[in-house]
């Protein structure tokens, strides 16, 4: 705890609260030693979140790329002068 708090201009209880939040989120785990409780960074949940975001991005990117093509087609159709307009009767 003391070691972890050292680099921050933050009270020890504040650092302790942050650690608790990180631990609840599964982002760190704490071991136990005689006098120390060394914290370990758990990278897996973060990696999972990043992977998910990446997969989600790819899915939408592919859809939006198709939408780009569709829209440029619609744009072209709009700009084209109308063929002989059907006569109103």
């Amino acid at each position, binding site marked *: 705890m003391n070691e972890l708090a050292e680099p921050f201009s933050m009270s020890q209880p504040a650092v302790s609260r942050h650690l608790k939040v990180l631990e609840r989120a599964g982002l760190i785990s704490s071991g136990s030693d005689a006098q120390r409780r060394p914290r370990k960074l758990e990278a897996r949940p973060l990696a999972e979140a990043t992977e998910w975001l990446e*997969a989600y991005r*790819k899915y939408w990117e592919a859809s939006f790329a198709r939408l*780009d093509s569709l829209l*440029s087609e619609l744009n072209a159709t*709009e700009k084209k002068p109308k063929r002989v307009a059907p006569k109103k009767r």
Partner: protein
Amino acid sequence: MLFPDSFKVSTPSDREIRVTRSFEARRRLVFDAFTKPELVRRWLLGPPGWSMPLCEIDLRVGGAYRYVWRSEQDGSQMALGGVFREITPVERLVATERFDDAWYPGEALDTTVFVETGAITTTTITILYESQEARDTARRSGMEYGMAAGYERLEKLLPTLTGEPT
């Protein structure tokens, strides 16, 4: 000119996922592409190897929409539907969203906003889940699903999709 760099995915709150993208088109056209079934079917096809055999949209407040996707590989299906809650033509759509085989609890609420600047339309889709747990469950399965779709096939497909029609 295309705007792939404008594409952003974010999580503005514990219960939301937001997707933003700009398109080179008047928003009337972008709105049409999101609400006319014959246009939606041309781009919202799901992951590579999937098609969209059914796309029904009853664009009225209280009207329903329904999308069905099918995997050409194994014939498995995935369906999604909901009801429109709010429609402001060309500007804003609010609709509920629920998958048939919902892997997350409850319904989600989708808000789609179209903002036109010059001839560019920026579209923001925000999906609000019932709880953080629901969002995270949706995220997790979304990840597995995305992985299963295979990046490689997707990478191959992308260049052919971005080509301008002649």
